[in-house]
């Protein structure tokens, strides 16, 4: 092989390699290739602008200071109505949970001293309603607290700053209340009677203390004290024990008992209507009677507690007092009169029906028509407005918005007289009921009866005298007349009861009480009374809170929200009605839970005789 051949061979091989590479490159040219991507995006002036904007926003966001909102909105119904409904539901259940232990304890105590097991059974029956009601009270309390924090943060924060030292005692008391309540209920028949009564007593004391603390918060909003003009706390003691604190404490305690009694009576009515046997009917008839007795006994002194509260409101602020009685809320008291009139009529009707279950009731039933006339007249006077809605021609014919005759019945002199006579008449119905089927045997029975009559008519005469005299004196003198009117009625009720207790001690039984023999209408009357009480609680709760008008804390912290106005009474009554209906739906659930304890459990068999 020559050198030239070798060189040609190498060149040929190189050319073949190049040709192979070129052919191969030509063959794969259509194959997929990833698109070319630039390392940096090509930017336009708009992109630059947007980037700068985003950067500026981010920077602004980071630099933004924390500004707490004053208010937040609740969808659809608004924050005020949401808090209103929650607060009312919480208060209704709380009232029930505070009231029932009070009279359950008293009934148990009566059973302990008399040795009559029926009372113990009745007290237990009332207590059965508490367990589920207590849970609902707590649930709505939590709802309300969260709603206040979420919807009214600035105002809630202010209240928390003023009252934070009261929170720990409140929570501790609540904890103790739960302990006492459950041990009182589940420990029935398991502890010695004295220990059990002690638990009941503690339950009541703790419950009352809780209410007193919560009342300080709400009354501070209404009649603030212990703070500077700008709202700075000066004295927690004064803020706590403000003008309306104690009147509200007393008013609420009495009202709670009246309300709790009526709800318990409604439960008994429900069970009576469901009852299958005479024995059940007799038991629930008695329970309904006791519940209603508790309700009406507490209801009678309630207007007097209301007078005290109203006078404290006037003492705190004439502006607020006049707004209540002569301003935006004056017509609310006409609605209240209609409610209370209905309550008195229904309570008396139930008592009169109840007389029918006692043999030999005829002696006293003849008085019913006179009582009915007195009650109806007083109701009419109380519900008469001072000025009336009239057309232009009617106003001209009357010579003003006040009716020439009926206008005289619309003033406080007439109304105070009417309500005091109403109370006296209802008290008489109780007395007649109490006497039915009995005959006094004491030697001084004639003198005793005469003394009772003299006291009754004497009290009525004092009430009517001051009622008429009030038209002839100055207002500053007239407003003091309610005191002797109230005192004479209270004194009459106490004295007549005292005489009656001794007069009928060891009385001869002339007729048996046939428990369970009442017509069904009597039980519907009890339910009507319970609904009316509930609605009344809602209405009066509205006026108490509404009196602050456009203030969260009257004169200290203004309401700047969109709801800072006083709604119409028509709207307020709609909210009260919806709340009452929700309450009754829930209390129906409580009744159902309570009635489950009467039924046999799964797998248990009924013990047959």
């Amino acid at each position, binding site marked *: 092989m020559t050198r030239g051949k070798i060189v040609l061979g190498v060149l040929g091989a190189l050319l073949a390699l190049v040709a192979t590479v070129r052919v191969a490159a030509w063959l794969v040219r259509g194959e997929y290739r990833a698109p070319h991507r630039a390392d940096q995006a090509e930017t336009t002036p708009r992109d630059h602008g947007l980037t700068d904007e985003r950067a500026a926003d981010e920077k602004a966001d980071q630099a933004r200071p924390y500004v707490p909102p004053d208010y937040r909105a609740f969808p659809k119904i608004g924050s005020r109505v949401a808090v209103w409904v929650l607060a009312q539901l919480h208060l209704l259940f709380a009232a029930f949970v505070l009231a029932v232990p009070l009279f359950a304890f008293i009934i148990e105590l009566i059973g302990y001293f008399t040795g009559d097991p029926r009372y113990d059974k009745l007290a237990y029956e009332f207590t059965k309603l508490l367990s589920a009601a207590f849970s609902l009270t707590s649930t709505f309390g939590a709802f309300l607290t969260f709603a206040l924090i979420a919807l009214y943060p600035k105002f809630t924060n202010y209240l928390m700053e003023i009252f934070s030292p009261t929170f720990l005692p409140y929570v501790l008391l609540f904890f103790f209340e739960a302990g006492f309540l459950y041990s009182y209920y589940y420990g029935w028949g398991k502890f010695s009677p004295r220990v059990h009564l002690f638990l009941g007593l503690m339950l009541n004391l703790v419950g009352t203390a809780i209410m007193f603390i919560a009342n300080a918060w709400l009354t501070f909003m209404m009649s603030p004290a212990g703070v500077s003009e700008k709202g700075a706390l000066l004295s927690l003691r004064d803020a706590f024990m403000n003008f309306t604190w104690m009147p509200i404490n007393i008013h609420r305690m009495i009202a709670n008992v009246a309300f709790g009694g009526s709800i318990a009576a409604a439960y008994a009515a429900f069970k009576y209507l469901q009852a299958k046997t005479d024995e059940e009917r007799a038991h629930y008839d008695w329970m309904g009677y006791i519940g209603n007795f508790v309700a009406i006994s507490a209801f009678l002194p309630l207007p007097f507690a209301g007078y005290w509260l109203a006078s404290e409101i006037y003492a705190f602020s004439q502006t607020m007092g006049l707004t209540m009685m002569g301003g935006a809320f004056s017509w609310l008291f006409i609605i209240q009169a209609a409610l209370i009139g209905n309550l008195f009529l229904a309570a008396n009707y139930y008592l009169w029906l109840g007389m029918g279950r006692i043999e030999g009731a005829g002696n006293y039933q003849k008085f019913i028509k006179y009582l009915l006339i007195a009650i109806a007249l007083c109701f009419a006077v109380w519900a008469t407005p001072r000025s009336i809605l009239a057309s232009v021609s009617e106003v001209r014919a009357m010579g003003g918005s006040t009716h020439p005759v009926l206008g005289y019945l619309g003033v406080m002199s007439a109304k105070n007289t009417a309500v005091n006579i109403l109370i006296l008449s209802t008290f008489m119905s109780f007395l007649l009921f109490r006497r039915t089927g009995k005959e006094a045997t004491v030697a001084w029975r004639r003198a005793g009866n005469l003394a009772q009559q003299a006291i009754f008519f004497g009290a009525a005469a004092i009430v009517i005298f001051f009622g008429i005299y009030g038209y002839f004196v100055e207002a500053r003198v007239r407003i003091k007349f309610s005191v002797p009117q109230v005192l004479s009625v209270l004194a009459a009720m106490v004295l007549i009861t005292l005489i009656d207790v001794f007069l009928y001690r060891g009385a001869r039984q002339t007729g048996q009480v046939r428990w369970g023999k009442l017509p069904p209408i009597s039980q519907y009357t009890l339910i009507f009374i319970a609904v*009316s009480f509930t609605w009344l609680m809602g209405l009066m709760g509205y006026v108490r809170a509404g009196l602050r008008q456009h203030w969260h804390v009257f004169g200290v912290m203004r309401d700047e929200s969109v709801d800072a106005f006083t709604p119409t009474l028509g709207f307020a009554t709609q909210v009260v009605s919806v709340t009452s209906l929700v309450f009754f739906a829930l209390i129906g659930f409580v009744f159902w839970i309570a009635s489950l304890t009467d039924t046999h459990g799964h797998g248990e068999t009924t013990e047959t005789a």
Partner: protein
Amino acid sequence: MTLRVPLMVRIAALVVGTTGLYTYIGQLVPQKQVLPPQVIELPDDLSTQDMIPVGQQIFQGKGLCSTCHTIGKGSSAGLRFPDLDGIGSRAATRIAGQSDLEYLGQSLYEPDSFVVPGFNPGMPAMNKPPIELTDQEILAVIAYLQSLGGTPSVTMQTKLRWVEGGS
């Protein structure tokens, strides 16, 4: 054959009917929505005569004066607070050595310093919560009160002693 309505339905009807009745009663009474008071901006060059109707408006509205005080309801007998008919002329004679302007100013800023014989104290200071009239609004009210039986002399430039810089 009689139709038996279940017990729960009867009770529900009673509850709904009763609340319905009370709601209906609530619709029968006068319906008034009360709005929070607004501050009335008064121009400094408002004449005394122009201040009178503004003062009357405040008297009947934001100031809540007419809630307690009447005008032209006769003697004080039976009234809880003084009738203000003729107050424009009476104001200068209430307290010896005090002009009507001073007396009316004192009545609005410090109502408890002098209480008309025969009446109880109870009027709130108009410049403080809950009513909180501004100094200008109080001047307008004074103009209106002076017009009730007297000759208005107050102007928007009047500086009462309760106002900063006043004498």
